[in-house]
């Protein structure tokens, strides 16, 4: 996962976490852990589509905050 993509995902997760009301300290910790777990999950995969990436991030996020995982996975399904 390249650094630009990592920064974009981290930014989106921080916005979502703040939007659902998670305090900033906890949010930073969640984001770091989710990014680390996502990188581990992506090891060995040569080709990853955007949908795959969203699914993997949401799966890793669910361990820390189910609401975050739901929002991240379903953000394009609201309208």
């Amino acid at each position: 996962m390249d650094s630009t993509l990592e920064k974009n995902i981290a930014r989106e997760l921080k916005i979502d976490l703040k939007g659902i009301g998670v305090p900033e300290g906890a949010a930073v910790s969640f984001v770091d852990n989710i990014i680390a777990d996502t990188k581990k999950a992506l090891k060995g995969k040569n080709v990853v589509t955007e949908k795959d990436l969203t699914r993997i991030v949401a799966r890793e996020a669910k361990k820390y905050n189910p609401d975050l995982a739901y929002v991240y996975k379903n953000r394009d399904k609201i309208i």
Partner: protein
Amino acid sequence: MGIFISLEIVFLAMLTYCLFQLPAGIFSIFYHYASGKSSSRKADGLSIYYILGVELFLSVIFLLLYLIFSYLFINIGPFTSTIFPWVLVGIFLALSIASFFFYFRKGAGTELFISRKLANRISANAKNVKTSSDALVLGFTASIPELIFTFPLFAATAIVLANTTEVPRPLFVLLYIVIAISPLFFYHHLFHTGHNLAEIQRSRVKNETFYRIAICIGFLLLALTMFNLGFYYG
């Protein structure tokens, strides 16, 4: 046209409009990202401009239709003696079927019938609201994609007001204003009292079938009311 039937049409039309999900869905996205990027306080401030934008759009549509129908019925006679009630019966029947099968897309979430490209564009705009003018414009344009379903509702309301002399029109206008934007105030209240986008969206997904059936019944009741108008008053 009698007072009760006039009130019934306005009330039904606006209640049916309340069940449509696009302005409320856009509001949810906008509020979540506004509070995520800045603060809940700023999101609260911007949400008032969003609601104002929606109300502005409803007012513009209503005024245009009221002027058109007032002019029309001065020249061609009362609404009930024309072909219009029967045209509206047909339109409402068609919309009741179309809304049941096509308003929500099949699949997870509450994806609507609008094209995915347009939906993504609207979502992107909602996520990037920064100023009150952005929020106002977003609110003003929020209901436009749904006009194919909601335009006859505004038309029915405008026709009733253009043909009613027995009740003060401000009462109908008040009903129109208050009922039409009440779902937005409800969603604003939900966000303001600590509910987040995940909870609200789960609730919308759970109630999708209810919305679908209620919109269908709303259109059917309007068709029946128009049929009565055409049959008994025409």
